[in-house]
């Protein structure tokens, strides 16, 4: 499966951008500001982001795949988001994916953004000495060792969308932009799926540490 994903990634046009000195947020190494999020523009349900056409660009890549050109440093596969309604009691949800570092240096996903949510953070799930679990922001982001994979999955690490600005309905797609420590952006199209689990985030308060 990973080989197929890589082949699909290799066939698509470049979507990651390198840092340009004149881009206002390219110099940032911390979480994108909300103003920068707004600048990304709206992403309507069922479409795949910036270069859309009817049916969504990522149809050619399959569900949950991401455009990565040949030689892309970070390949993202099997991206999906748990369905959620804007008017839910806790309008937040997790996005999951496999991150594959194709270079011989560590790569760090420093931050993430999405027009589908007011706030996006990188989260991990931790247990205290009593065994209860909480989710908290990961300071410093997700670092992937050279040549290794890091899997964001329910019960573990994930991208957290908070303050939804649109419904995420199973069968649709949502775009999330990952920003690496060096400013490289990776656009990820996550397939939305109904999922019974990953409920723990709803049992906590809506603060960044929850």
């Amino acid at each position, binding site marked *: 499966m990973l080989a197929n994903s890589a082949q699909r990634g290799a066939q698509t046009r470049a979507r990651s951008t390198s840092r340009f000195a004149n881009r206002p947020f390219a110099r940032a190494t911390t979480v994108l500001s909300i103003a920068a999020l707004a600048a990304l523009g709206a992403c309507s349900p069922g479409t795949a982001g910036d270069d859309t056409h009817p049916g969504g660009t990522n149809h050619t890549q399959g569900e949950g795949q991401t455009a990565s050109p040949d030689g892309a440093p970070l390949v993202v596969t099997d991206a999906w988001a748990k369905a959620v309604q804007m008017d839910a009691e806790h309008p937040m949800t997790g996005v999951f994916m496999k991150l594959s570092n194709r270079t011989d240096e560590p790569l760090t996903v420093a931050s993430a953004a999405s027009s589908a949510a007011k706030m996006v953070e990188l989260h991990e799930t931790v247990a205290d000495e009593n*065994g209860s679990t909480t989710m908290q922001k990961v300071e410093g982001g997700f670092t992937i060792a050279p040549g290794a994979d890091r899997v964001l999955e329910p019960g573990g690490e994930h991208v957290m969308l908070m303050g939804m600005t649109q419904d995420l309905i*199973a069968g*649709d797609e949502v775009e999330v932009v990952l920003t690496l420590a060096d400013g490289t952006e990776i656009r990820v199209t996550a397939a939305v799926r109904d999922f019974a689990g990953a409920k723990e985030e709803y049992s906590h308060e809506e603060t960044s540490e929850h």
Partner: protein
Amino acid sequence: MTLPGNQDNPVSRRSVLKAGSIVGGTVVAGGALGGVIAALSRGLTEHPSPANVTAAPAEAPLAFGSETLPFYGARQSGVTTVAGTQLALLAFDVDEGLGRDGARRLLRVLTEITSKLTQGQVPLADTEPEMVTSPARLTATIGLGERFFTRASIVENKPAWLRQLPAYRIDQLQDRWNGGDLVVSLSGDDDLTIAHARRAVTRAIARWARPRWVQRGFQGARGARPDGTTMRNLMGQVDGTANPTPGPDDQVIWCGPEQGVWANGTSMVVRRIAMNLETWDEVDRVAREDVMGRTLHNGAPLTGTEEHDEPDFEAKSPIGFPVIAPYSHIRRARSDNPHERIYRRAYNYDDDPEPGELSNSGLVFVSYQADPMTQYHPLQARLAELDSLNEWTTPIGSAVFAVLPGCADGEYLGERVLGL
């Protein structure tokens, strides 16, 4: 900067935390939960010894477990591809307000799941990834019932022939086995794989569709007989001998270009046929063969010696009676019109008897044909009018579906056909 509990150490806090989330992640203090989490963690890694920090990779499935049939292509698999020995035929009712958006979402999700499961790959959000590793020729064939088109507001795309069959004199249909807006036909050689596929499909489309009926069936364990052996039904008969030949008879089986976007689709007729095995027990062997027109030994016609010998309906016995009786099943099923043929792919069912009964067995009869009204209906009408087999068989369920044409990698089933 690395985080504690990295990816490379599965016996780590991460797997412990996963166990925690499986028990709900609710706040419970104390050592008892810690003990439970530790036990679950051991279960997750499958290696009880804590010294074994690297879980061994799953062994390659034995024998036929790793065999797959293609998913993508001009035509869906599961029609003329080799029949798996097990069947789970899932019929669903869809939301009245499904609409075009709902139909699109449902078919996208369904395609993603079945395209992966049939290849032994893990679908997105699948919580039992270990249950996909033995595809064993899993196929998932998807069809739409008449009412799907109404509820999805795409009536203009419905094939002209798609409607329920007329009532036949022999029918004793039960509504619980009739109809359906959507069908997913799962077949393959591993029942565990099929059970997981059924679960994956059912829960993923639950927001739009609810199970209406499930018909499970079997042909006989793979490997118990040479591959390619025609199956036997529960009356002991060789069942499925005279089938059109894929390739030369494609125009009988598949919708042609004259059906526009439905080309390379087909129709699926499902008839649940109950067998009265108690009264069949009263019939001696000679009479049984006379009813069918074929021998029980190898399914050869009474005028031949090998299963696939062409029956000679003109042959007479020494005293002048037709060797193959005019009321026999194969005589009544034969049409002079070569177009009136169907491609059969039936399975046995053997369910729990009703109170007071000894058996509850029969056939999940499934046939594929380009047009059920001009191919299946005349045949069934002729059998309803006269077929000695009717004495022991009764249709108790009936449904017709339009099987979608295939799709390419990157597309979803129904995308083009339905104009979604």
